[in-house]
């Protein structure tokens, strides 16, 4: 557990920063909900004039006058993008950062198997993501309580749960990529998260791009679908988790045989 503890200690500043950033933005959004409620009709007209962009963000199927609809659109975007960026950055730097910073030589000349190093690093990433998700969920629920609104438990928990799975999938894929890099590349991680997010927007805009929902994990985090179905779409979730597991397995195989230069 030494590597796990060490990784958690090394990552605590990033964890605190991302949790504070996402949590405070979510709280801000929830706090202004009572103010925006009065402007629902005007907002409805505005969004109706945005054509396909309304569909891109799922606003054509959600009622922004309810906390559920408002939370899924506004807070869902913050939670989705923020969480995805943090997960990607944590995953992409897990293995490669050691080589870029030349600390791999220190770590891997101790009597610890590379497979165990990789496993403990992955566990550290997942623990950090879980810690961030729990803290952010607690802040979101507290802010809903603060504004005196009834909490839409099922929708909120499903949305946060879906985003937790999205983060796990992205972290797993980036962890896999990390094993093939010689130095941490934040650009690859953030770029991948951004591309997958855009893929979901495109898939919402046209039926011809609907298949992209199967590829991007943002597909099963779509608030409009979660509210409509009352559950997550199992197929894309299973596919995404399988992809993440395959990436992690590839990472372990590669890392075990990699030359540390």
């Amino acid at each position: 557990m030494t590597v796990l503890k060490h990784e958690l200690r090394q990552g605590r500043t990033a964890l605190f920063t991302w949790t504070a950033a996402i949590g405070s933005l979510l709280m801000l959004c929830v706090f202004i909900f009572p103010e925006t409620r009065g402007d629902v009709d005007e907002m409805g007209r505005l969004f109706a004039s945005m054509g396909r962009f309304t569909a891109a963000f799922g606003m054509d199927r959600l009622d922004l006058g309810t906390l559920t609809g408002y939370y899924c659109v506004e807070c869902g975007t913050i939670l989705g993008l923020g969480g995805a960026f943090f997960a990607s950055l944590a995953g992409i730097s897990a293995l490669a950062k050691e080589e870029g910073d030349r600390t791999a030589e220190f770590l891997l000349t101790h009597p610890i198997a590379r497979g165990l190093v990789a496993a403990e690093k992955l566990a550290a990433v997942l623990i950090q993501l879980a810690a961030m998700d729990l803290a952010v969920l607690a802040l979101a629920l507290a802010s809903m309580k603060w504004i005196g609104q009834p909490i839409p438990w099922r929708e909120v928990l499903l949305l946060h749960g879906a985003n937790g799975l999205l983060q796990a999938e992205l972290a797993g894929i980036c962890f896999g990529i990390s094993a093939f890099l010689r130095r941490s590349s934040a650009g690859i991680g953030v770029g991948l998260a951004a591309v997958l997010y855009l893929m979901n927007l495109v898939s919402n805009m046209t039926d011809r791009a609907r298949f992209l929902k199967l590829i991007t994990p943002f597909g099963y985090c779509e608030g409009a679908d979660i509210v409509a179905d009352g559950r997550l779409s199992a197929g894309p979730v299973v596919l995404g988790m399988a992809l993440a597991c395959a990436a992690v397995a590839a990472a372990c195989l590669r890392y075990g045989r990699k030359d540390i230069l």
Partner: protein
Amino acid sequence: MDAIITEGLTKYYGKNRGIRQVDLTVRQGDFFGFIGPNGAGKSTLIRTLMGLVRPTAGRARILGLDAARDRERFLARVGYLPSEVSFYPGMRVRDILKLSADLRRRDCAGARDRLCQRLRLDPSRRAEELSLGNRKKTAIVCALQHEPELLILDEPTAGLDPLMQRAFFDLLRERNRQGATVFLSSHVLSEIQHNCTRAAMIRDGQIIADGTVAELAGTGVKRVSVRGTVDCGALAGVRDLHRTPEGADFLYSGDISALLRALSAGDLRDVTVTEPDLEEVFLQDYQRGGGGL
């Protein structure tokens, strides 16, 4: 049991040569020097031994264990000092030393404090504030605090001031007397000659000589200095010939009788024949680019 044995150990980085067919034996209790210029393959051999890079061919046994299969088992008994030292930012020296001990599942607090005191290393300093010398000292404590049976040290004195170099070699000699095997690479030949009992030389990825330091320094080569005139033209085995107004100075590796005949035929006021030191032999061999000593 030998501390290190390599058989045909070869490493290519793509098409680039790292080491080729390295056969080397380091006996237990040796204070072994590994000499070679930059790019000769010293660090590649050491990184291959430590399991950081996988050999292209050949195998290595360390402390009787297969270096590829029993990596964790032999690493528990080895102390390693890399040539370039890097630590995690934000950590203090004491945290780095504790992390190293924890990774070995050992409590090294007593040895750690003694080593820090002896090397005058402040454990409260942050990693990013450390000078090159203090980073090196931290790495030395990491390598020594668990009292390993084998020390593998890659260019260990780079960055240490002369006083600290002396303290460091005192420490190594103590450990060696207590039974530890020391394997150190260096391109500072005097360091090897003054401290090591055995040594090997590497050039272009291949071992070109190994043996005791005395053997390597005295491979039949003599430094000959004459005052007066002597005809060296007919002598085979003369190299590094320097003529001065007073006489001549050269390295000689040919037949001693032929040398004496040539000297006695000359008009000499003085002559000295000495064993060249290791550095001289090494540099001559490298400048020659020959196949061995």
